[in-house]
């Protein structure tokens, strides 16, 4: 994991993403690709006034992004992380998808409410499925990304396995790794298989099993203060009805107090 794609855009989640991107790049001795996206205003009335207003709004957006860029690049220059800056215009999702081809991980927020941008949970979901790359979704209030204590939510599904495999470079840097198997139905592959796989990569995990509702249990563990981030499959289908629309993933994206490392 070396190539980190960081969304740079002036919004309420920027600081948290930026800090996480920096912390991640330092920990991995990786490279930060700062993708600065100027989002055009939503479609306006199709008359000459609409066109003028749209033009002004884009100019405003570009000024804001220019200021954002100046602030962030000044901070990057003081740090000793390798980085590059890419400017692009368009909606967030397609801009990120295009830039993601050679990314090893994409840093986003798990939620934020800035109108008129689309819901971040939707962007995360679409990117996970569309780009096939892992996403680090950080809470908007996060001030740092610590890598010491990892929690892995395991249900034996292909998405769970994909997240585990993608997270290995990070897990190798952890001091403590916990595999949480929530047995509210039968898992396709037991947590011991995951632990064996990890041990071949020199990562030693302890297995914890609990029963009960998956979302509630995982959120409880994530909120316990004992873990720095959570690894889980994003929008994997496990149980036909309940999980069909990624209920557990949506729930964690809405409520997790710690960053989420997701893969599909």
């Amino acid at each position: 994991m070396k190539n980190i794609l960081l969304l740079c855009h002036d919004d309420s989640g920027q600081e948290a993403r930026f800090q996480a991107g920096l912390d991640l790049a330092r920990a991995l001795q990786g490279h930060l690709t700062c993708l600065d996206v100027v989002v055009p205003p939503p479609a306006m009335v199709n008359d000459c006034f609409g066109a003028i207003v749209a033009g002004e709004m884009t100019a405003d957006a570009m000024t804001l992004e220019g200021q954002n860029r100046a602030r962030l690049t000044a901070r990057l220059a003081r740090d000793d992380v390798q980085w590059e800056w890419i400017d692009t215009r368009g909606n967030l999702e397609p801009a990120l998808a295009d830039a993601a081809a050679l990314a090893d991980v994409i840093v986003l927020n798990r939620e934020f409410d800035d109108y008129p941008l689309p819901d971040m949970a939707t962007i995360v979901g679409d990117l996970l499925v569309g780009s096939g790359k892992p996403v680090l979704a950080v809470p908007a209030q996060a001030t740092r990304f610590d890598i010491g204590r990892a929690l892995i939510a395991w249900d034996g599904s292909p998405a769970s396995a994909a997240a585990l495999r993608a997270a290995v470079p990070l897990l190798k840097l952890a001091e403590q790794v916990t595999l949480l198997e929530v047995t509210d139905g039968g898992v396709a592959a037991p947590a011991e298989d995951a632990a064996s796989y990890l041990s071949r990569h020199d990562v030693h995990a302890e297995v914890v099993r609990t029963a009960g509702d998956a979302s509630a249990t995982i959120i409880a563990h994530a909120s316990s203060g004992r873990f720095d981030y959570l690894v889980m499959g994003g929008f994997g289908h496990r149980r036909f009805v309940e999980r069909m629309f990624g209920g557990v993933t949506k729930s964690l994206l809405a409520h997790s107090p710690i960053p989420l490392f997701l893969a599909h």
Partner: protein
Amino acid sequence: MKDLLVLMHHDHGQEARLGAALALTRALGAHLTCIDVAIVPELVTDYVTSGGEALLRDDEERSEHENRARMLPRLIQADVPYEWVDRTGDLADCLVEAAGLTDLIIVNRDLSGGAFPDMYQLTGDLLMRARCPLLAISRDTKDFQPAGHALVAWDGSPGAAAALRAAMPMLRLARHVTLLTVEMDRMKLMPERAASYCGRHGVQPVIRHHILRRESIGEAVAARASVLGADYVVMGGYGHHPVREALFGGVTRHLLRNSPVPLLLAHPH
């Protein structure tokens, strides 16, 4: 890349598969899971043929039982961390199910002449359904050199990017890496970006551009692989849904049938 899966089955490609798998396991310091599949295809049965299906299954299982007796001592002697697993059923299904936490699956690229099992079809199925790259070995491959010269066939597509990322643990071992481009028009990701990406992972490739004369892209890649002495080719594979007639795109198809060296294939998910 620490968890490898190799198909064991009494067929013409087994020797090559096992040889390559062992070489790679040693080079990567990995663990090898040998999955022996008694292949029982899904047959449409009626009361006339159902007896036949049971007979086929018994034969296959007996044959694989014998295979295991022959091959297990070779694994013990090879002195690598390994595990032997027996399965019966549809070949692709068994492999996909076993490959949940696998980093690489070793199969053959094509056992031509209508040989059983159909490795060409299997490669397509696995590429679409498994979530890890495949190493597709020629049946004649002896002495596979995992740490030799890797040729990355780069066309700037998401498939090529996926293959490059998946291959990185092997590329880090390689003595030499060539990034080969053939057609540059409308290329989404230029080879220089691929080379920077490699650089961040500690790999320094050499970029070579080949100008097509009268050959197809597939023929050009195969020829360059020979001429440059590559030990394997890395490329994006586009497997299609089994219902579609063409299993692969033209370049992949050509190389699966004709590559002088093993292919490391991945699919962008």
